[in-house]
C-alpha cells in the first residue's frame, strides 16, 4: 500500500510541474484536477500514455448560475489503483468540447449519453445519435432549466386534452 501512495505523490508532482492546473486535490486514491479546455485534452493523451487505460465515465454538471458546463472524465490506473478526475468548464452558450473517443474507446458511449442528456457537443465523436430517448424535441432533460414539472404535466397527464 505504501508503494502505491508514493507513486501517487510522485505522479502528482510530475503532473503539477507539466500542466497548468487551477485546482489540485488528493483524497485517498483519487486525484482531482481542474484545468482549462486545452489541458483537458492534452492531459488525456498523457494519462493514457502513463497507463490510465480505463475510462470510467465522461460526465457533465450544469452550473446554470455561472452559465457554465463542467465537463469531467474519470480514469483509472489498474496496476497502481489510482483514479484521476480531470474537470474543465465551458460556456453554457457554446457547449462544445473535443471528444476523447479516439483515446479511450469507452468514452464514446459516455459522450453520446451526455450529448443526448445535456446537449453538449463532443467534437470528433462520430456516434452522437439519440441513445435512450425517442423523438425528444424538448431541451436536453438533464439541464437544470429543463422544467420536468411542466413537461410531465403536459406530456403525460394532460395529453388527452391537447
Amino acid at each position, binding site marked *: 500500500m505504501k508503494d502505491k501512495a508514493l507513486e501517487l505523490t510522485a505522479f502528482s508532482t510530475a503532473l503539477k510541474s507539466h500542466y497548468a492546473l487551477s485546482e489540485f486535490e488528493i483524497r485517498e*486514491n483519487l486525484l482531482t484536477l481542474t484545468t482549462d479546455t486545452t489541458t483537458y485534452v492534452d492531459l488525456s493523451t498523457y494519462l493514457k500514455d502513463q497507463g490510465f487505460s480505463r475510462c470510467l465515465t465522461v460526465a457533465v454538471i*450544469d452550473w446554470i448560475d455561472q452559465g457554465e458546463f463542467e465537463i469531467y472524465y474519470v480514469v483509472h490506473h489498474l496496476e497502481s489503483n489510482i483514479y484521476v478526475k480531470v474537470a474543465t468548464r465551458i460556456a453554457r452558450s457554446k457547449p462544445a468540447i473535443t471528444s476523447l473517443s479516439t483515446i479511450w474507446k469507452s468514452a464514446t*458511449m459516455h459522450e453520446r449519453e451526455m450529448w443526448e442528456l445535456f446537449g453538449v457537443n463532443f467534437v470528433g465523436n462520430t456516434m452522437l445519435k439519440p441513445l*435512450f430517448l425517442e423523438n425528444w424535441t424538448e431541451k436536453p*432533460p438533464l439541464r437544470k432549466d429543463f422544467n420536468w414539472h411542466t413537461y410531465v404535466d403536459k406530456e403525460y397527464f394532460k*395529453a388527452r386534452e391537447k
Partner: protein
Amino acid sequence: MSRIFKAIKSVLGLAVSKPMTFSFPPDMPLTELYRGRQLYKPELCKGCKICANVCPNNAIQMLEREKSEENKTGLQPQIDFRKCCFCGLCVDNCPTGALSFTNFPILLTMKPETLNYTPEMLAVPPTLEHPEAPKIKNTVSWARSRSIWIVNYMTGCCFIEAVPWVASSFDMERFGLLAVGSPRHADALLVGGYVTPKTLKRIIRIYSLMPQPKWVIALGNCPMTGGTYWDSYNTIKDISKYIPVDIWIAGCPPRPEPIGVAVVHAIQAIQGGYLGKEEKTDTDAGKMEVSPYPLLGADANKTEFDMVFGSQHPASGNFNMALKLDGEIIVDAIPYPGYLHRGFEKLMEYRTWLQNIMLVPRICVLDGASYELAYSGVTEKLAGIQVPIRGQYLRVVQAELSRIQSHLMNLGFGGAATGFDTIERLIWGDRDQVLLLLEELTGARIYHIFNTIGGVRRDIQPDFQQKAEQLIHFLRERLQTYDNLLIHNKTFIDRTEGLGILSKETAIQNDVTGPNLRASGVDFDIRTATPYEAYQEVGINTVTATKGDAYHRFLCRRLEIEESLNIIEHALDQLPSGPVCETKTPEDKKITWRLKIPAGEAFHCIEAGRGELCFHAISTGENTPYRIKVRGPTFGTILVMFPKLLHGMKIADVPVTYWSLDQCPADHDR
C-alpha cells in the same frame, strides 16, 4: 465417467429430497418484518403531517377528520397504494407510532381507485378474502382457465417477482401457466412495472398481436400512476389510457404471492366465462411516435440482411440490438437501449439526500443492495459521517447476500440460454431462499432500503445468525449439485468454452469490470483494491480465471458465490457489538430526512454484483443533491464491448454470450 455418476446422483438426490415448492395459498413464506400494508391507529395520531411530507411518492394525503384532544389539527393520513413504494419513511418518521407496518402483501384490484385507503380503511387490520368462485360456465371456459399462457416480455423491475413463478419455488406450471415467446400463442400479457415511451409501443404491438380472448395483468404501481417515477420525464403514468387492464397488483415490486392470488382470481373469473375487457388500443394519449430502428444497411444483393434482436426476447432483457447478418454470421452489431431509461440522475436532484435511498436500488433491480450501499457511501463521504463498525458488518452481509442472489439469477439465465431449463428452475428456486434471508435481515425481498445515511436501519433479529448458517450450509451443498449438473457438464462446457473470448487488453480498454474482467485474468476487485465498509476486516479472496470465455465467466460467478458465503460466515462470526447507525453528523446535527449536506463533492466506488459501481455526488449545501452521476457496471460491458464481441459469431450464440456477461439493462439505461 465419474462426472456422469455424480450428475445422476445429484438428480436422484433431488428426486428423493423434499420439494422446494411453496404450497399456495395459504402457507406463505413471509417474515414478520416484511413491509406490507400499513396499519393506522387513529388514537395515537397527532395530525402532524410529517408522514405526508416525508413520502417521496406523494402517496399520503391528509384528510380532515374530527378534531380531538390528541389530534388538534384533525388531520388523518390517507394512503394511496397506487403510489406507495413501502419504503417505510412514513413509519420511521411517525413520532407517535400511529403508523406501523403489517406484513400483509396482497393488494390487488380490478379498479385501481379502490386502492386509495382512507384513514378508516387503514385502521382495519388487513385480511385476505377470496371472492366466491363462480360456477364453471362450460367446458371451453374451464379448459381456457386452466391453461393461461403468458407472453414473455420483461418490461420493468416488477418482472423480477414474476421470476419465482418460473422457478421451482412457486412453480407456475401447476396452475397451467406457461411463458411463451410468441404473442400469437399467448392469452395473457403481464405488464411488469414501469413503461417508458419506447417500451409502450412494443407493449401495444404485442397486445394487438395476441388472439382473442386476452387478459392484461399490470404489476406494480408504475403502470397505474407512475409509482416511484411519478415525476420522471420518460415513463408513462397510466397504461390504461392505451390498453385495457384487467387486474392491477399494487406493490413496488409486488411479492410473488399477490401475483399468484391474481392468477387464482383470473382462473376463477375465466372459468365463469369472463372474456376480458373489450379489446381496444388507444394511441391518442401521446408518446406514440416511433423512430426508425437504426438498421445497419445490409446489402440485399449479397446474402446479408438486417435483424433486430430484442426487446421482446427471453434472452435479451428489455434491450435491443440491431444486427447485420451474413447468413447466420453476425457481421456488425449496434446496441439500441433506452427501454428502461427513467432519468434517475434528474429524479435524484429533487428528492432529499435521505429520500434518494428509496430511489437508488431501483436503478438495477437484480442487485439493488449495491446501489444503496454505494449511494449511502458517497453521501457519508461527503458529510464526513463515520458508520459504526457493526453497521458496516451488516452492510457487508447484505451486500454479499445480494451478490449471491444476483449470481444465482445469472447462473439460472446461463442454464436457460444453453437449454438447461431444469437448472434454471432449480437455481432460481434456491435464490428464493436467499431472498427470504434478505427479508429476515432487511424487511424486503428486492428493494431492501436497509441502508440509511449513517448506517443501517435495524439490527438483526436474535435468530438471524442461526438462519444464515442454515442457508450457508444449504447453499454449499446445492453448489455441488450445480457443479454436477451444469458447471462440470460436458454439454454445457462444449457450448460455452471458447465462446466470446475477451482478452485482458480488450476487456480493460472497453471498460469491462467485475466478474467479467476477472474471468479474463485481471485480478481487480474494489473490495480488495480500495476496501470500503468492513471488507478489510472480514478479508476476501478474489476469484479469477484466465481464458476470458463465456464458460469462465459463468465459472467465476459460481466460485464467487462460494466466496461470498465465506464472507458472510466470517462477518457473522466476528460481528462486533455496538450501535448499527450513527444519528448525528460531525457538526452535531441530527440526521433527518431533510439533512443538509455540506457543499463539496465526493466520488465513491464499490464492487457490485456486476462490477465497479461508482457514484459521484455534488452538493451545494442544500438538502437535495445538486448533481449525482451514476456510473453503472454494465454500461461499458454491454453498450461498448458486447456489440464488438458479437462480430463473427453465430446468431444462436448471442443469448449465451449475452448472459455470460450478466446483463442488467436497467443499470445502463438508468
